[in-house]
């Protein structure tokens, strides 16, 4: 790890002023479970690390009839243990408890989870986010891409969006709040993730001197919500495919659906095709299967990951059936 300056501001404004206006010189440190790994391998080498753990305003979970507010520093362990979340947003608690290991959940923060960098092994081994060789050939397309994207992979970005919490948060219609030198802004969570087109861009709509301050989730009265992950190992492994669904019902038919896949594209992938396929339909094996087909209809697997198309299809189908039968266990 390269040497760096370590600063611990106690207010959001101080933190913003300590961050650089361009990427490279400074990084925000929350739990450090992702950033320290990147720094150990010299993938990221900031000159200054801005520790945000001492900023009180970024802490805390509160539930009210208006919904749920989670401060940026909420840990994954807090998400898994919070009584209000377990009761009202059980699929979120379930996604949190399935992530990583207990020790990591005790350190890992919600904002860090949303801002964690891709697990792509080219990126993690120093070849860049959009890896190319000296002659400009894309390394992932020609290389070992078994864990890479099957959707949204037309451009140079072939990595997959790494969070297993994000798809379910998007299904719950979460919004993310940010604060920077120009003030505050709020985005639907799905808009926070972008597909970079050049090495100077990142995979988030986040300025180098902006901070994620909190995530808010509206109340969800009559929706059936579920989250389903497919992992090679049962525990402590990154998934191969994730699906989260939220189904608003009108009688026994689906009035509207939100269907989000993780680990299939450089961003969390919403599928309007699958949502359309379920709308005004009853929930059964057949309609779930049709929606799942629609979700992967446009998949373009790379040379070594065609198997992921089937896994994504199955994840969507099982998430729908799980939601139909009552959602999170």
């Amino acid at each position, binding site marked *: *790890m390269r040497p760096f300056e370590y600063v611990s501001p106690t207010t959001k404004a101080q933190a913003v002023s300590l961050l650089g206006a361009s990427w490279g010189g400074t990084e925000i440190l929350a739990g450090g479970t992702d950033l320290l*790994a990147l720094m150990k391998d010299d993938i990221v080498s900031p000159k200054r690390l801005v520790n945000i753990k001492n900023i009180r305003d970024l802490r805390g979970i509160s539930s009210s009839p208006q919904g749920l507010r989670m401060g940026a520093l909420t840990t994954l362990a807090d998400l898994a243990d919070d009584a209000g979340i377990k009761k009202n947003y059980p699929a979120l608690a379930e996604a949190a408890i399935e992530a990583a290991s*207990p020790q990591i959940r*005790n*350190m890992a923060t919600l904002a860090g989870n949303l801002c964690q960098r891709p697990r792509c092994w080219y990126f993690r081994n120093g070849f860049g986010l959009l890896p190319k060789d000296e002659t400009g050939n894309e390394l992932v397309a020609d290389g070992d891409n078994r864990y890479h994207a099957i959707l949204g992979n037309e451009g140079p970005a072939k990595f997959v969006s790494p969070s297993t919490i994000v798809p379910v948060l998007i299904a719950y219609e979460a919004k993310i709040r940010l604060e920077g030198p120009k003030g505050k802004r709020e985005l639907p969570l799905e808009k926070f993730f972008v597909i970079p087109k050049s090495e100077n861009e990142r995979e988030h709509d986040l300025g180098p001197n902006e901070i994620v301050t909190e995530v808010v989730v509206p109340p969800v009265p009559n929706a059936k919500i579920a989250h389903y992950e497919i992992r090679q190992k049962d525990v402590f492994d990154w998934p191969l495919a994730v699906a989260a669904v939220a189904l608003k019902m009108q009688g026994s038919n689906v009035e509207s659906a939100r269907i989000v896949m993780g680990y299939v594209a450089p961003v969390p992938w919403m599928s309007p095709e699958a949502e359309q396929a379920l709308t005004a339909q009853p929930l059964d094996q057949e309609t779930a299967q049709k929606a799942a087909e629609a979700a992967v209809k446009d998949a373009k697997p790379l040379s070594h990951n065609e198997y992921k198309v089937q896994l994504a299809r199955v994840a969507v189908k099982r998430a729908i059936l799980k939601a139909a039968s009552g959602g999170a266990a």
Partner: protein
Amino acid sequence: MQKNVTIDINGQPHRQAVEPRLLLVHFLREVAGLTGTHIGCETSLCGACTVLLDGRAVKSCTVLAVQADGRSVTTVEGLAQGDKLHALQEGFWEEHGLQCGFCTPGMLMCSHDLLANHPTPTSADIREAINGNVCRCTGYQNIVNAVKNASRKMAKRVSARAGAR
């Protein structure tokens, strides 16, 4: 560029100027001289370096010493009271929860976090609690038995204390 930190380790304050890039596990082993905390992978995968930070299990190879400034750390050395082993240590002893012993400090600290929050865990709870810890010797079953053994002992002691009152 050094930073002064004060870290409470097993009840003793340790004050030291450190480089910000120093990992907590290196602070524990090299600055505080407490080598019970092991380093297996240094990449968050094996769990051998697990300690309690303000009571919660964390991987000390992926925490900076400066992140622990002003906080309290419990290492495996903090479990026994003088010659009296902690119930978890007795459990590992009695149920053969270790062979080479390399993973044991991490297993103990993770189980400690588990029992503090779930005093009577099922086998599944125990396996979940140690899923970030690798053991190449035991096959895990005896570790699960050891944690159960400790949980039974601790429950007995709690009820004995309650009875004495």
